């Protein structure tokens, strides 16, 4: 452990610890509240007593009230599809930017970086028209299409690829390896942490994405969990918080658990990926 241990100017450690705990508690509060309501009967939604009876009814109700299994499947297919396409497209593009010199490279890279700013999330009106003209409205493919090529992913992988020692590259070339082979055998293995970090960001982003899927999906067969949840919670006749929170936990549960299990690797992969 060689992390920089930072001492605070004029503050004492105890005070800092308390401040950190307080903030951490505030940050955890919504989740704690969701867990509380989800596992207790509706009567205890606003009534916090230690001996409130535990129940799984809310989960059963939520599960029965909406086709969450289908929504999960949709989301799973969606994030998998996006991740694979992003990896392939971004790897190829990043490799091109990092390894080759060709006319227009500078301006094309600038155009790629432009997407960091002008994200498809903002261009909902025109992208909707495009998807419609492709006759892809209400398909899982349509939710993913605008995100397949990611400026962020290309930028990140290019940074990583540029740090690959040229000697390794040359050695492989001398052996007669093709460019694709070079990419596969030398560049990609060295960029593993970047893939992990980027993959995690991508998965959590698209798992949680809402606006575009809301616009482009119409049916149970295509709706991801976020849209499914909003449809479920949009019932006008009074919220049943306990059931909605049970649904919230269900929909974000897999991601939350994955994060809890891998959180150390997550931060470390960011570090190794050189995102800083």
């Amino acid at each position, binding site marked *: 452990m060689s992390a*920089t241990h930072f001492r605070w100017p004029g503050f004492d450690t105890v005070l800092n610890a308390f401040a950190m705990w307080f903030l951490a508690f505030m940050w955890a509060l919504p989740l704690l509240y969701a867990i509380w309501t989800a596992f207790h009967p509706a009567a205890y939604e606003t009534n916090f007593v230690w001996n409130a009876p535990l129940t799984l009814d809310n989960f059963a109700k939520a599960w029965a009230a909406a086709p969450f299994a289908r929504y999960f499947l949709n989301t799973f297919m969606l994030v998998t599809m996006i991740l694979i396409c992003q990896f392939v497209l971004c790897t190829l593009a990043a490799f091109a930017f990092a390894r080759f010199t060709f006319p227009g490279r500078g301006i094309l890279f600038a155009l790629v970086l432009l997407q*960091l700013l002008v994200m498809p999330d903002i261009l909902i009106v025109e992208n909707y028209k495009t998807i419609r003209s492709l006759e892809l409205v209400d398909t899982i493919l349509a939710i993913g299409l605008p995100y397949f*090529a990611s400026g962020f992913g290309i930028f990140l992988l290019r940074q990583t690829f540029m740090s690959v020692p040229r000697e390794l590259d040359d050695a492989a070339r001398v052996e007669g390896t093709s460019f694709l082979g070079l990419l596969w055998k030398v560049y990609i293995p060295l960029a593993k942490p970047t893939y992990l970090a980027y993959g995690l960001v991508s998965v959590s982003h698209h798992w949680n994405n809402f606006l575009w899927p809301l616009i482009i999906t119409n049916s149970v067969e295509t709706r991801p969990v976020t849209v499914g949840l909003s449809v479920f919670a949009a019932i006008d006749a009074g919220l049943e918080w306990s059931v909605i929170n049970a649904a919230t936990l269900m929909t974000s549960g897999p991601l939350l658990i994955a994060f809890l299990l891998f959180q150390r690797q997550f931060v470390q992969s960011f570090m190794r990926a050189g995102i800083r």
Partner: protein
Amino acid sequence: MMHRREWVYGWLFLSPALLFLFTFTHYPAVKTVISSFYSTPKGRRPAKFIGSENYQTLIQDDVFWQVLVNNFWFAVGTIPISIGLALLMALWVNSKLKGRTLSRVAFFAPTVLPLIAVANIWMFFYTPGFGLIDQFRSGLFGLPAINLIGNPDTVLAAMIVVAIWKEAGFFMIFYLAALQSIPPVLKEAADVEGASSFYYLRRILLPLLMPTTLFVSINAVINSFRLVDHIFVMTEGGPDNASSLLLYYIYETAFKYWQTGYAATLTVVMLVLLSILAIGQFFLFDRKVHYQ
């Protein structure tokens, strides 16, 4: 000849990504500008060229101006605070303080929770009378109920809090990764020189974190335009548009009122704003950042 082959490969490797980028980013961005000069097609009436009419509507649309002002305050409220908190969280979590692992989990958890889902939880916090905040206020201080999201003076602040809560932990990760890669030698050297911790923070750490700050702040700026999911659940832009943001207004205009021509005009405003901010940020940070 070798050179020629590189060209071909370069273009070949690049083209699939570029195809998608152009189709879903550059083409629609340009098309948005064009559409903003056309009327909205209705039923069997196609769109027709109407010059600057949409822009005249824009200037006279007081909802637009209000939304713009809201978005300005939303940005001012979220960007500095979430970045500041993210840095603070990272410093804490990176220290030797007890409970730092649990704190890190707590700080980061909002990132993996869908905003659309947690909005329902925040809704309960803000509910007057029996919501968590009010239970706390009346239980501890005997204060009257407060209607945070039903009051135009407080609703935007309530939305800002949710956004900060959502994004600060994500930014923390970037700072954390940066902090962990700073060689401890630097700190040791500073200690040997007898530099104060404050001096170390201001003169050594912050400059070293500058690239991260640039990256994070670009993200924060984009988020200040993009984070609208909670508005759908919590306020639908109300009361009287007091919590409506630009992207939410674009959504309403395009997919609720079906004024796609006017929605394109609003999107143009968003694109212009983003460009100005990007250029501004670039110049602001340019001198301080040493990017490779």
